[in-house]
């Protein structure tokens, strides 16, 4: 069996011809542009496109412009693998930003890892992503570090909170792991979790869950969901007379929620991995230009995609200073780029970030914001210190 295995595995041994790096420098973006995951993916596309323009306007990598290559992953695993393989061999990118979903990352990241191509996950938050391999890192902080801040802040705003209801979207990988953190934090803070309700991201009628919350008579509701279902849930909670505090998970950290819960969004406390209010000069410039172009503050998914592109560019700059990028073999550059990414420190819209040896993002600042709605349409995330 072992010999057979060896023969099968060898097949056509990977004799890859030496290739130079092309210019402008190709960076792959593999996110969901179609399927129902596109709601998240399209923000990432905007964030990445914006980064390309922003960075090239500032001289790219020490004068060499970058070029983003977009490959749609769709919403499924096979689509993610196809997109990755296209980027790796056909588009010959130096590194990849993607995919959108953690499930897709578990499928496609090993491909890039084995091909020794660096990957930066822009939005994968599930446990175990950076551990897929040495070439896999992410700029999206895992939920376990983001979520607890929100609970602490809510308690600071209203120290009388005792009774809690927890709700989460049980078919969403992110929300199910986030709710675990929320529930643990609530217990650690001495709160009494009276009811835990599940829903689906495809649900629209939350009357059952809301009634259970009202009957439990709680003073804090913690919701882990995505923009549409989370927004709907909040809307129905408020419409039906819930008056207490609401914490929204990181999946609801997007202005896409405003058209859904409208004025009822007001007051939601949100745990954020990114805040437009983050005071660094870098971020403020990003927010200013982004708002000028898109008429709204950048959402977290866009900021994270931007950050991933920026990390590549910053790391490439360092390498370029040592040895001109045009002189690198593509395969060597990819390996070097990966090493450099993990070694560096980056001043991004997310604040100052770096990576640990696995590729897990080490983010200095997490934020808690409260939504303030001006009217039914426009609102802002107000940064809470």
């Amino acid at each position, binding site marked *: 069996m072992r010999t057979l295995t060896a023969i099968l595995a060898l097949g056509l041994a990977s004799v890859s011809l030496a290739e130079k790096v092309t210019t402008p420098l190709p960076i792959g973006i593999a996110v969901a542009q179609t399927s129902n995951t596109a709601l998240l993916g399209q923000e990432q596309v905007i964030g990445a496109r914006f980064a390309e323009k922003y960075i090239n306007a500032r001289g790219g990598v020490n004068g060499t412009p970058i070029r983003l290559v977009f490959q749609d992953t769709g919403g499924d695993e096979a689509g993610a693998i196809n997109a990755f393989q296209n980027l790796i061999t056909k588009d010959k990118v130096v590194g990849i930003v993607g995919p959108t979903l953690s499930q897709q990352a578990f499928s496609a990241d090993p491909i890039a890892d084995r091909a020794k191509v660096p990957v930066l996950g822009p939005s994968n938050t599930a446990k175990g992503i950076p551990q897929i391999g040495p070439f896999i890192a992410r700029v999206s902080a895992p939920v376990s570090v983001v979520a607890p801040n929100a609970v602490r802040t809510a308690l600071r705003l209203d120290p009388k909170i005792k009774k809690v209801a927890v709700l989460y979207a049980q078919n969403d990988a992110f929300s199910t792991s986030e709710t675990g953190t929320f529930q643990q934090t609530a217990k650690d803070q001495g709160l009494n979790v009276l009811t835990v309700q599940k*829903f689906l991201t495809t649900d629209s009628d939350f009357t059952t869950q809301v009634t259970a919350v009202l009957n439990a008579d709680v003073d804090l509701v913690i919701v882990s969901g995505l923009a549409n279902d989370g927004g709907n849930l909040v809307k129905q909670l408020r419409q039906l007379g819930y008056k207490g505090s609401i914490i929204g998970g990181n999946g609801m950290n997007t202005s896409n929620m405003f058209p859904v819960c409208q004025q009822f969004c007001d007051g939601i406390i949100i745990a954020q991995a990114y805040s437009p209010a983050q005071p660094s000069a870098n971020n403020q410039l990003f927010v200013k230009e982004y708002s000028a172009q898109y008429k709204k503050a950048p959402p977290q998914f866009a900021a994270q995609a931007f950050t991933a592109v920026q990390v590549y560019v910053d790391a490439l700059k360092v390498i370029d200073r040592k040895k001109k990028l045009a002189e690198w073999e593509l395969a060597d550059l990819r390996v070097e780029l990966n090493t450099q990414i993990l070694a560096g420190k980056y001043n991004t819209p997310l604040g100052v970030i770096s990576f640990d040896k696995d590729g897990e993002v080490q983010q200095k600042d997490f934020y808690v914001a409260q939504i303030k709605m001006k009217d039914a349409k426009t609102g802002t995330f107000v940064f809470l210190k």
Partner: protein
Amino acid sequence: MTELLQNLINGLAIGSVYAIFALGYTLVFSILGIINFAHGAVFTLGAYFTYTLVVGQFENNGLIKGINLFPAGSPFHGSAWAFAAAALIGAVLSGLVAVVIERLAFRPMRARGADPLLALVSSLGVALVIVNLIQILVGAESYSFPTDIYGDLKPALIFSLGGKLIVVRTVQVIIFAVSMVLLLILGYVIGRTRIGKALRAVAENPGTASLLGISVTRFIIITFFLSGFLGGLAGTLVSTAFSVAGPYFGVAYGLKGLAVIVLGGLGSIPGAVVGGLVIGLAEAFVPAEYSAYKDAVAFALLFVILLIRPQGLLGRVQIQKV
């Protein structure tokens, strides 16, 4: 007891939407013996049409903006009448889309006498086209209707019964009322009018009907229009209660609608209503701690009913002639 009452209210409201949505499915099945998978996409379209007409504003990611029929300052702006008009126009447009679908995706197939199963694939293709066109045109975001869509009505009626709260949302009442009125009208049309009798004749036997001088093609068009109208209106109703939840919004309803019509009996009009209410209620009565299994309820019911009574609750047994 209060819980029972609350579940009953929730179940009837959602069940009545399932019912009018499923009616559209079942009408087409009764006439053509095919399942039109694009019905879920028409449902989504209905919601988008109405939203476009009433609010007329989409975010930046799509190619088009909306058209606001009743812009601020115009006489009906923000009134319940403006909404009702938009909903009606949205439903009519959905009906027209359904007619176009019939013309392009079904009629050539019928002319050739193809396997009715192919209609499944063809209509799936249509659904794929519609959903992705919506995404390209207006983006993947969700939208809610303005909260004052029903004028000055309070969002909900909440009262306490034996220490427990009972919540009746205004939209629930409106959905239920509109659905029931619609069902009564439809029941009258199909049961009493000439058009309805002709429709039933075509459903019974297309061959004989054409002998009786009924233009089958014309009635198929009418059927598709009605089906699209009902689907689109259901889309609008659901989206006012919750939100216009992106281009894939109707897919889940499409699938559940399938369970509804089989439960009630494929092709049976009262069956669609009973099936809708039964599934709505069954889902509402799933205890909160098992709500994760709620989506399995409709299908478990479907599976069981098929095994016990394959023709559905109100369907007729087909006797095979040997």
